[in-house]
Structures are given as C-alpha cells and as structure tokens.
C-alpha cells in the first residue's frame, strides 16, 4: 500500500500525479469515488493523466450527445485516445487498456494497492 495523502487534498474531477513505487500514477476523485491509473498511455507513452477528464459521452442515435457521469473517462493529451477509468479499457476495444491501480480509502487517507493485479 502506498499512502498518497488525505482525501481532502484531492480536488473533485482533477487528476493528481503521484509516485507509487517506480511508476507515476494519476489519482482522480470523481463524485467522491477514487480512481488511479498509470500516467502512461499505452499508445505512444504520453502523459495520460494530463488529459481531459469527463463523463463518458455516448449517443443513443446519430446526432445525439449524452453523458454518463457514472463512468469517468480520460482522453490522452497527445492523441485523444479515451480510456474508461473504472477498468482502464479503451472505449473502442476492451482488450486495449491502461494499467489501473486499485484504490482504498482508510481513515481519511487515499491508499494505492501497488502491485495488485486488477480484473
């Protein structure tokens, strides 16, 4: 476990980049849930967590623009490739993903489970 600070230090909808072991990890507070992924896009190794965070845009029909706020999405600042922060999966292909780091909140502190494999 790596303690990356008190919950209160994390601003809603903003990534905070921390060192966890040998890796830069972006930690996001989103509607009082926490998500963490490696700050390294699997595409061309760009600084993923410097990109825009949003809800997942989808369209139920051509021309419609809707947003699912339950699922935060990060768009890489280099090429705009989007990843679901829940599982790290690219929005166009489930098999393509950024590494996700599990997060626990204990006694008001944000803890990263470094080294634990995710689903």
């Amino acid at each position: 476990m790596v303690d990356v600070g008190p919950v209160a230090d994390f601003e809603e909808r903003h990534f905070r980049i921390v060192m966890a072991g040998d890796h830069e990890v972006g930690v996001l507070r989103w509607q009082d849930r926490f998500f963490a992924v490696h700050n390294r896009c699997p595409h061309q190794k760009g600084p993923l967590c410097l990109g825009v965070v949003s809800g997942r845009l989808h369209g139920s029909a051509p021309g419609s623009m809707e947003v699912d706020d339950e699922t935060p999405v990060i768009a890489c600042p280099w090429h705009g490739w989007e990843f679901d922060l829940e599982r790290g999966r690219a929005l166009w292909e489930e098999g393509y993903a950024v590494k996700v780091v599990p997060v626990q909140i204990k006694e008001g502190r944000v803890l990263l489970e470094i080294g634990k494999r995710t689903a």
Partner: protein
Amino acid sequence: MYSGPVIDCDVHHARSSDAELIPYLSRGWREYVTDRGRAGSVPLTVQDGFPNPHGFMRADTYPDGGGEPGSDYLTMQAQLLDARDVRRAILTFGDDSHLAGHHNPYFATELARACNDWSIDRWLTQDARLLSSIMVGSQLPDLAAAEVRRHAANPRMVQVMLVDNPFNYGFGHPVFHPIYAAAEETGKPVAIHGGAGGWANPPSTGGGSVNTYFETHVLWPQAIQTHLVSFIAHGVFEKYPTLKVVLIEGGSAWIPSLLWRFDTEYKGLRREVPWLKRLPSEYFAEHVWASSQPLEISPKREHVIDLIRSMQLEDKLVYSSDYPHWDADEIEYLSTRLPAEWHSRLFFENACRLYGWKADELKKPAAVVQSAK
C-alpha cells in the same frame, strides 16, 4: 481463366436519343421538354463533364445498326451476356445516371421516374438476366424515397443508385436519410457510383477542381471516399442497421489505407461521434461492398493482392465490367491479376451475398430465368 457463372454489377445501358425517354415523362413534362418550337427540346441530360480524348466508349460497342453503345440489347447480348456465363447483369444507366446534377430538382425527380420506367419497359422485358438500378432525384429526398418504394415489390429493381451530389454534403448527411430509410425498408442496397466529376456541384475532387479528364479519372475514388467516410461517421449504419452499400467504379486498393486511417482517427475523435459503437472498419466489413473495376495495376501483381487481402476484401469485391465504357475490365484480365482461389467469390458469390440471392439456385441454368422474373 475463370469460366464459371458471373454476376456483372456495372453495365451501362443507354438510350440512343431523347425521343426514347420522352414518352415516359408525364404529359406536362413532355410539354415542358418538347414545346420549344425551333429551339428544339430541353436537354434531358446534364450538360457538363470532361471530354475523353478517346471518347467514353469502346469503339467495338457501337451497334452495327446505329445508336449509342449500350443502347442496343442484341449487341449487349452478343458482346456481354452471351460471351460468358453471365447469370445476372445489373444495369446502371448512361448519362442519365447524372440526373441528380440537374439544377431543377422537380425535373430531376420526374426524369428519375421516367428513366426507371424506361429501364423496366425497354430492358428488363428483354432478358431475365438483366436487373436494373433505381435512379433517384436526390435533390428531393422524400420524393426520391417514394420512387424507391414504388419499386419495392419488383425484385429486378435491385438497388438505389447515387452518383451526383446535389447538396455539397457527404452522402451520410441526414438530408439524404429518407432515401436510406426506403432502401432499408425495401431491402435494396445503395450503390454509390463514381464519376460525378464535372457534372455536379461540388466538384468530385478534394482541394479544388481539376481541369482534364485525365486528372478527374485518376481522382474518382476521392468522392467515393468522402461518401464512405460520411456514411460511417454520421452513423447511417447505426440508424439503418440492415442497410448495405456498394461502391462502384472507385477501385479498391485504397480501401485498406483509408480504413486504417479511419480507425485510428476514431480512437482520438470518438467524442465527436459517440453514436458510433464500433470501429469504422467493422461497419465497413458488415455493410459495404466494392466493385472490382478499375482494378489498380500494381507494378508487381502481388502488391495489389496483398492490399486486398489485408482487409479481407476478397470477400467484399464484386465483379463489374463497366461495359461498354472505355476503361472496362475483362474477366480474362482479372483472372490473371487476382488469385484463382478468389475467382468464384469475385465473379459470383460475393454479389449473391450483397443482393441476398441464393448462389446454389442461381448456379442452375434453369433457375436463372425463373428467379429473375
């Protein structure tokens, strides 16, 4: 050489004179067209286009009895239908195919109706192997859709054909969607035929107009690329999930590079088109076919084969001769350029899948006539 059954997906039938089509116009439009005294008739075809220094037709296709190439059934029968084991040939009109380039949308709509009736009356009655495209005046999409539905019950009016572009929007734009609703409802594919260059506004070349037929012919795939990208980006295949599209006379070797680029761009720009659920290449694989002509001639035969194989286009290419045009591809020639193991798909089976025909039945000579009636 391939000697099996053939489905030819691009055969240009034509009329020898305006007088041939005028009887199929309504009385009012006949008056409009013909009642000009010494000024003669209103031209029925769009008066534009680049001249081909050789002419647009194979010299040997001019009928012995006079008239335009593609205008005489017996000549077509001898040169095309009976020359090989042609089971079906899809007619795609001549200069009338450019009617969506007319400035007058009401005239274009009437011409489309008349052309379709002429095609049925003058051609489909001659030979059960002949099938026709449905021309539409896409300037008025609701009326175009009504024209498609008028032929809903006629299985020999097999596809809706788009050539010229009246709106300066890619064909995926919602303004065209009533046509696709009708196409899907009637189970008829949409055929996008290359070659609107010079006949329509906008030009069919990216970046600006070109000045010679040479240039425009090299660049024919550009307009088709625009429409293909537009179809997928606008979510036409999400909105009309059983719709099929066939790209005619644009070649095929460019398709892999376009789809590779399209997929990559989608990964970065998905936010702009979130109604898409799959990669663009996946929509292509399910919904889009392409005609073989003109097959790109790579310096080494295997280069174009590798490109086609890279996207499994050997399962999506349908043979098209383009008879009687000057740049037509012969079966003998394609047989030497493409692997023998592709031939039955290219010349016959892929078209059966596109048009929903039972290949096994269509292979039986006796069934050809019956099923085409």
